[in-house]
């Protein structure tokens, strides 16, 4: 029997139907990543499942039992939730944040609760912070405490709503590491996330949400490398692309360069390829196309399946390959030497130079 079963769930706010006819079965030990554009109801879906915002129609079963407004408190003890903004009790220290729930709701003795809390704090690397107040912790530490607090209730399922979105980028990995370990330990997890590495490497299934429901679902291999439906394809294509509009010769090139650098980092593109990619982009845009044509647009796209990276620069004007007209031989030779292949196309008044890595 599924640990969590959603049947024909509907959620509306007034006349606004956010989710309609959503059904899903989640088995024990599954890790489900929920991805999709903003506003497609990912948070609403999680909140409907644990009745923080009860569904307006349909049913949710936990471990075979229909969740109702009456029994939802009992269910929530077995189904924890971690929020983007941590939700710690600000007036309690870390240890009390963890122990309060078990003492109050599960009738565990204080000493027993603290013993377990100490152990959980060790597993998230924060035992030394047990007597700290939440405000004395970094964002990453707060979120690890929030996860430990959730675990203190011994839940069978944990719902995560963008647990790393509010964090400084340097703190994302410490929280993701805790979540990876949790997944490995067999915890059933539903995770709304923008961390595509996690979705790809850790989840058993990915739900892509759009058009009022689970628009497409499948294992990460399918969703990331071979999505079947149009909107999923567009979404996946987009997260692997970097676009930049150069409006004039005086554009903010530092912004573009760091954007490209970040893109390489996010997609874990190897050092050598990352360098070539950045080199081609910098030389093409700054020294070859912009001096001749002014405005242009950059699109970098990374295809994991084909293990290639395409760098396209488009610019308006007469048909002309900017590499031939460039005054700058050094830059041209750097681009030619770094790319595997360079193509020039002209259509509808727009030139496109594509360098393949």
């Amino acid at each position, binding site marked *: 029997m599924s640990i969590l079963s959603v049947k024909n769930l509907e959620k509306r706010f007034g006349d606004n139907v956010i989710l309609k006819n959503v059904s899903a079965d989640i088995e024990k030990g599954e890790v489900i990543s929920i991805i999709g554009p903003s506003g497609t109801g990912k948070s609403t879906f999680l909140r409907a499942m644990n009745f923080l915002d009860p569904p307006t129609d349909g049913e949710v079963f936990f471990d075979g039992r229909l969740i109702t407004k009456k029994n939802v408190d009992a269910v929530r003890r077995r189904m924890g939730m971690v929020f983007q903004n941590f939700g710690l009790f600000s007036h309690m220290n870390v240890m009390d944040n963890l122990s309060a729930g078990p003492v109050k709701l599960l009738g565990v003795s204080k000493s027993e609760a603290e013993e377990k809390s100490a152990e959980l704090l060790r597993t998230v690397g924060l035992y030394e912070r047990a007597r700290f107040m939440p405000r004395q912790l970094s964002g990453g530490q707060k979120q690890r405490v929030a996860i430990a607090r959730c675990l203190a209730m011994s839940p069978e399922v944990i719902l995560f709503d963008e647990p790393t979105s509010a964090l400084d980028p340097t703190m994302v990995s410490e929280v993701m590491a805790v979540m990876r370990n949790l997944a490995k330990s067999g915890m059933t997890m539903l995770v709304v996330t923008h961390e595509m590495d996690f979705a790809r490497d850790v989840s058993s299934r990915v739900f892509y949400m759009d058009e009022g429901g689970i628009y497409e679902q499948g294992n990460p291999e399918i969703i990331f490398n071979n999505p079947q439906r149009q909107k999923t394809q567009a979404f996946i294509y987009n997260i692997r692309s970097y676009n930049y509009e150069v409006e004039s010769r005086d554009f903010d*090139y*530092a912004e573009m*360069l760091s954007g490209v*650098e970040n893109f390489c980092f996010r997609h874990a593109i190897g*050092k*050598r390829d990352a*360098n070539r990619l*950045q*080199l081609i982009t*910098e*030389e093409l845009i*700054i*020294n070859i196309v912009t001096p001749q044509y002014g405005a242009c647009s950059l699109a970098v796209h990374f295809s994991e399946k084909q293990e290639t990276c395409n760098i396209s620069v488009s610019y308006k004007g007469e048909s002309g390959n900017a590499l031939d007209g460039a005054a*700058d031989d*050094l*830059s041209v*030779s*750097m681009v030619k*030497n*770094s790319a595997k292949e360079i193509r020039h196309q002209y259509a509808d008044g727009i030139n496109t130079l594509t360098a393949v890595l």
Partner: protein
Amino acid sequence: MTINKVQKNGKLILDIEGRLDTATAPQLQGVLIPAFDDCKEIALDFAELVYVSSAGLRVLLMGQKQAKKTDGTMTLQNVSDEVMEVLEMTGFTDMLTIEQQRNFL
């Protein structure tokens, strides 16, 4: 990019860390060119330099010219693999003086 200056036995070593690109090359130019006024022997340590583009290479050429003009020398040392690839691709390895073993001074 950060530039650390180390002075040893009349020699000036500029430790360059980070990226030498269109955005940061002017910073190196501003330090390197005037440095020849006070010092004949300048070494650029590229152990921690991870990226160089044509803008950076142009500053190296200017440095080389300035060295000639002032009767000094400019040497690159401990060049990282990533940067070496670019120097090789552009033929700069033949134009510049490069010393590849670490100099513990």
